[in-house]
């Protein structure tokens, strides 16, 4: 009984009343568990950028930001608990960085009226804003990624992949299976052979898959991996001497820690990225105002790496939407529904990115009521043995392939859950 009283007290503290005026951006992070290596830099970037806004600009529109972190360990049940415990703080937007937790939160956030932003992960068909009113997945989604890779390969092969073989090495989970349907459609369209290779979680063992790759010699290997699977796959590719330029990861398989252990041997490995890297002015500001001042979330060692930059980019998009919401509603202390409306009207231009000190970090895009997915563009980058080098400009996906798939999947969801069009009736 005593335990219960303490519990009640501490729960009351945790779910305590929101401070007078704060913009709350909960960070459902994971700094432990099998995917910690990916979760840490992203969470650092997310909260460091918000801290920068507080120090440099006095928050957003004069209201300080706060980033309560809640550890999910990539576990959906903990994700639910985190959502419930941070929701009462006046959360403006959720970014769980986990496809599993996203699926949990889509119906919940819709009912609670809180926007959910899943950039480059989660449910792809949520790009259809007509069905998924509170879910946003700009600037790009998995099916875009599959299409972008094929488009880039088409370009390299003078417009034809006929007779070539593309293998997909994927994490055997909801996340890894996402691109299969798109790639199947594309394979039919462009007449290439499509080979599927599943790797079971966590992906420590891929010997058999790589023996198969060595036997069948596909022209390209595309990887949908996350966590330890990436390092092992890259190591195995080196072991069998697979030409690294023909090995391409999606944007969750191209972080620094994925290639660093292999180092120079992995040179040539390519991956997508939805945010450009490089020497942006914002990093110097974060270093000076946040890290040197000791306000940083992690140990500060991740500054500027791939996933850190992505976390920072996510925070930037959230902050811009919050600023827009303040402008649209005329209220400084905005709530979740204003945030949602602003996210739906969000337009990111080069000027905005430049002003934030991150010129060209992402593509220019505009969100509309129907289209929550942005342009879906991404760049391709290459590991040169020491650092990631940006290889291409933003590449556009083939919307004629992805859009019908999105429509089909969202229509099924709408039918199952009795959702009517939200854009036409307003």
């Amino acid at each position, binding site marked *: 009984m005593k335990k219960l009283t303490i519990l009640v007290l501490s*729960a009351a503290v945790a779910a305590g009343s929101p401070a007078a005026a704060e913009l709350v951006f909960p960070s459902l992070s994971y700094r432990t568990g099998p995917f910690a290596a990916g979760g840490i830099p992203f969470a650092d970037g997310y909260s460091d950028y918000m801290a920068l806004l507080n120090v440099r600009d006095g928050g957003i529109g004069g209201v300080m930001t706060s980033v309560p972190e809640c*550890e999910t360990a990539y576990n*959906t049940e903990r994700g639910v608990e985190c959502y419930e415990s941070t929701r009462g703080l006046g959360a403006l937007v959720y970014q769980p960085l986990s496809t599993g937790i996203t699926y949990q939160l889509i119906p919940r956030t819709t009912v609670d009226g809180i926007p959910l932003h899943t950039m480059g992960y989660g449910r792809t068909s949520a790009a259809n804003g007509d069905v998924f009113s509170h879910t946003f997945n700009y600037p790009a989604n998995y099916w875009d990624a599959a299409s972008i890779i094929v488009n880039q390969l088409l370009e390299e092969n003078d417009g034809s992949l006929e007779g070539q073989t593309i293998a997909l090495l994927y994490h055997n989970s909801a996340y890894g299976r996402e691109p299969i349907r798109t790639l199947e459609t594309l394979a039919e369209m462009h007449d290439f052979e499509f080979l599927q290779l599943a790797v079971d979680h966590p992906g420590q063992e891929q010997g058999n898959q790589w023996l198969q790759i060595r036997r069948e010699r596909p022209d390209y290997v595309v990887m949908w991996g996350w966590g330890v699977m990436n390092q092992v796959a890259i190591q195995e590719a080196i072991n069998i001497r697979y030409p690294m330029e023909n090995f391409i990861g999606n944007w969750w398989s191209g972080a620094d820690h994925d290639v660093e252990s292999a180092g120079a041997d992995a040179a040539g490995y390519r991956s997508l990225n939805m945010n450009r890297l490089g020497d942006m002015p914002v990093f110097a500001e974060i270093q000076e105002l946040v890290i040197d001042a000791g306000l940083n979330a992690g140990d500060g060692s991740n500054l500027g790496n791939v996933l850190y930059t992505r976390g920072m980019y996510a925070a930037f998009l959230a902050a811009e939407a919050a600023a827009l919401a303040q402008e649209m509603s005329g209220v400084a202390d905005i709530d979740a529904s204003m945030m949602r409306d602003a996210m739906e009207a969000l337009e990111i231009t080069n000027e905005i990115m430049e002003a934030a000190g991150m010129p060209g970090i992402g593509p220019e895009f505009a969100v509309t009521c129907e289209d929550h997915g942005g342009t879906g563009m991404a760049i391709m980058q290459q590991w040169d043995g020491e650092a990631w080098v940006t290889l291409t400009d933003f590449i556009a996906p083939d919307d004629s392939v992805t859009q019908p798939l999105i429509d089909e999947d969202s229509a099924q969801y709408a039918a199952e859950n009795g959702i009517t069009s939200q854009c036409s009736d307003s």
Partner: protein
Amino acid sequence: MFYREAGDFKTSYSADSATFPILFDRYRYYLVLIVGAGIIPFVLNDYWANSILIPFLIYAIAAMGLNILTGYCGQVSLGTGGFMAVGAYTSYKLMTAFPGLDMISVTLLSGLMTAMVGLAFGLPSLRIKGFYLAVATLAAQFFLVWLFNKVGWFYNYSASGQISAPTRDFFYFTNIAVTGPSAESWAKYLFCFMFVFVLAWVARNLTRGSMGRQWMAIRDMDIAAEIIGVNPLKAKLTAFAVSSFYVGISGALLFTVYLGAVEVGEAYGITKSFLVLFMIIIGGLGSIFGSFAGAAFMVILPVFLRNFLTGTMNWDSALATHFEFVIVGGLIMFFLIVEPHGLARLWALVKDKLRLWPFPH
């Protein structure tokens, strides 16, 4: 002082063999029921419902199920997660194939389906014993998860293989949704509470009836049991079936009522099997009360620790999570050292002491 047998006269055999022979215990039991069914639903908020009470009730069912198999019949199983997945996927298929079906039937049918699957995987137990059996049930665990991950029919060929629970009613003509995003917390809570109550009642009476005594005979020594006329085939298989029925219902509720959307490898992986096994060992093997105590311990402790460390002590969340592991692990070892027979045993000791209090001599 109030906890006395004295003065509480029994006039029939049935009264004498009641679950709660002491008046005080009976009142306590009624009080729990009244608070559980009559008061909590009215004062419940979303945080308490979704983070503590609903998972507690659902895991209590799973723990009872596993306790029947492991605690009463002595067959260690590490396939709980896989069997829970069977329940979840059965209910998903039923809910999408027959949209008119109410949730009570869906859940019961899921339990039945799981019982059948459990029966099939229970067959090796006739030959394999002890740890070898525990590891053999892992075959069920991994195979079932792989199956639900691989065969598109189970998840209606959705692009990602995630399954989501559509909105369904409590029972015919009631119009109270218990699944889906619009379901109210109190409805979900009551729905689980009802199942827990009925299943606990059934489990209690099964385990002290002839079937339960057969299971315990097998547990204590199967060869001796066979000699005194217990049919090991029947006893072991019924234990597997009944246990899987409970576990399946719990898996179904976990998906439909609690999570609403699951991915099989994540929600029903091997960690779930271990979690439920923890619950019954911390709670007490061979005790219905122990199942509840263990479930409460394993559900509430992490939430409590997290809120305490991050909320009250203001640690950063990563550090708090690492400490959470250390503390949970440490407590498990501590409990096993202090009382290897679990919380249920501690509870029994307290009751024995109470009976004599305040004049123990």
